[in-house]
C-alpha cells in the first residue's frame, strides 16, 4: 500500500479540519453532546476503578470487607453487580452527607461534582477532571472541597462542561494559607512530589510547631478563610535562611476522591 494514498490524504485533511473547526467553535454543540452522553458512564467507570484502588491499597475496613466478602460469595453474578452498585451509592451518600454537614454550617454557594478522570502529565503531578464547567458557573481559582470543609484542590482550567483542577499535592497548586496558632502565621502552600504539601515564606520569627492545623487564609478572592489544608508534620528551619517552611500532611487520601464540591462564591 502506498503511504500517501488518496484515502490517507483525505483523512489527513479531515483531521486538520476537525482541529480548525474545534478552535472556531463550530463543533461545540457536537462536543458538548458527546461529553454529556459519556459523563455518567465515565463517572461510574472512575468510581469502579477507585473501588479497586481502595481494596488494593487497603483503605477500607478489612473487618467489613471480610463480612462483605462472605456475603458476596453466596450471591450469583446478578446480585454481585447489584452489590457493587449499592456500595458505590453508599459511598456517594456518605460523601454527600459530609459535604452537606459542612455547608449547613456555612453560607457558601456550592456545586457538587463527580470526578471523572485523573491525569498526571507533563508539568503536573496530579490533575483531576470534574464533570462541571462554565455552564454550571465554575471559574478558575475556585476551591475544590471534600468531606467537612477540607480543601483538596483548585480549578485551573474551565471548559463548557468540564473543569480541570490541580490537587493540593501538585507542585502547581499554590494556596494562601495560615496556621492556627497564637499569631495566625501566614504563608503559601505548594504541593510537594504529589504526596505532601509544603508551606513556604513563613518568617523565621514565627513559632510554628508539629501538629498545628493549617487552614486557608482567605487572602485569595475565590477561596474563603477556614478551609482545612492539613496538619504540620515537620518544620524546616535553617538559621541562615530568611524564611522557614513546613511540611503539611493532607487529612484525607486524595487518590480516592470521587465526589467533590466547589465553592462558587
Amino acid at each position, binding site marked *: 500500500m502506498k503511504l500517501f494514498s488518496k484515502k490517507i490524504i483525505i483523512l489527513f485533511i479531515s483531521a486538520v479540519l476537525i482541529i480548525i473547526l474545534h478552535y472556531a467553535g463550530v463543533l461545540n454543540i457536537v462536543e458538548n453532546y458527546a461529553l454529556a452522553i459519556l459523563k455518567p458512564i465515565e463517572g461510574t467507570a472512575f468510581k469502579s476503578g477507585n473501588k*479497586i484502588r481502595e481494596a488494593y491499597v487497603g483503605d477500607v475496613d478489612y473487618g467489613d470487607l471480610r463480612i462483605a466478602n462472605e456475603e458476596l460469595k453466596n450471591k450469583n453474578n446478578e446480585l454481585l453487580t447489584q452489590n457493587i452498585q449499592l456500595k458505590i451509592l453508599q459511598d456517594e451518600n456518605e460523601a454527600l452527607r459530609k459535604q452537606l454537614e459542612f455547608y449547613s454550617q456555612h453560607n457558601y454557594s456550592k456545586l457538587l461534582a463527580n470526578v471523572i478522570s485523573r491525569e498526571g502529565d507533563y508539568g503536573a503531578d496530579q490533575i483531576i477532571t470534574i464533570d462541571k464547567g462554565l455552564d454550571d458557573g465554575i471559574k478558575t481559582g475556585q476551591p475544590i472541597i471534600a468531606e467537612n470543609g477540607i480543601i483538596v484542590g483548585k480549578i485551573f482550567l474551565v471548559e463548557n462542561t468540564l473543569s480541570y483542577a490541580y490537587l493540593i499535592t501538585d507542585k502547581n497548586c499554590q494556596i494562601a494559607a495560615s496556621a492556627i496558632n497564637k499569631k495566625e502565621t501566614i504563608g503559601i502552600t505548594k504541593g510537594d512530589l504529589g504526596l505532601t504539601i509544603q508551606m513556604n515564606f513563613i518568617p523565621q520569627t514565627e513559632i510554628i510547631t508539629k501538629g498545628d492545623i493549617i487552614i486557608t487564609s482567605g487572602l485569595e478572592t475565590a477561596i474563603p478563610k477556614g478551609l482545612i489544608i492539613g496538619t504540620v508534620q515537620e518544620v524546616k528551619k535553617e538559621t541562615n535562611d530568611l524564611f522557614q517552611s513546613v511540611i503539611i500532611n493532607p487529612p484525607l487520601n486524595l487518590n480516592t476522591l470521587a465526589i467533590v464540591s466547589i465553592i462558587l462564591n
Partner: protein
Amino acid sequence: MKLLLKFLILILLVIAQVSFIPALPFPFFNINIIIIGLTIFLILNNLENSLVLGVLVGVFLDLHSFHFFGLNILSIATALILTYLFSAKFFTNRSVYSFVFLANITLFIFEFTRFLLIFLFIFFTQGTFYQEIIYTNYFTSLIYKFLFSIIITFISFYSINYYSKKMKSFFISVKKS
C-alpha cells in the same frame, strides 16, 4: 453492523483509558490500552482503517485533555504512520517478538511526539524553554508503560493466535526435487 461494533469498542476503550485506568492503583494506572489496541488493529488490518480509528480516538482523548486540542490526534497519527513503516520495512514476520516490538515502537513514538508538541506549544505560547515540563515520576511511569505494553501484547498475541489464523507465522518451504 460491523462498523457500529468497532465504534462501540472504540468508545469503551476511550472510557477505560480516560476514567477507569487513571483510578487504578500504582502501577496499573500507567497502562495505555489505546496505543496497544491501535497497534494490534494496525497489524491485523491496514493503515487507512487504523488511521480512521486513531483520529477518532484522538478526538475523544483531546476532548478530555487539558492540553491543546489536536495533541492526541497528531501524536496517534504520527505513531501509527511510523509504526506502519517499521512493520512494512523491518518487522515483516508475524512473530510474537515483532508484535511486541511494534507495540512498543508505537508507544515510544506516541510519547515522544506528545512530549515534543507540548514542548513546542509551551515555547511558542510562553516563549520559554525553562518551564519544568517533566513531572516527578515521569520516567518511572514511562518504564511501567513499556512494561505493561510488553505484557499485554504478549497476552494479546497468544489470544489472537488461539482464536484466529491472522497472526500465524508462515514459512516458505522449498521442495527438494
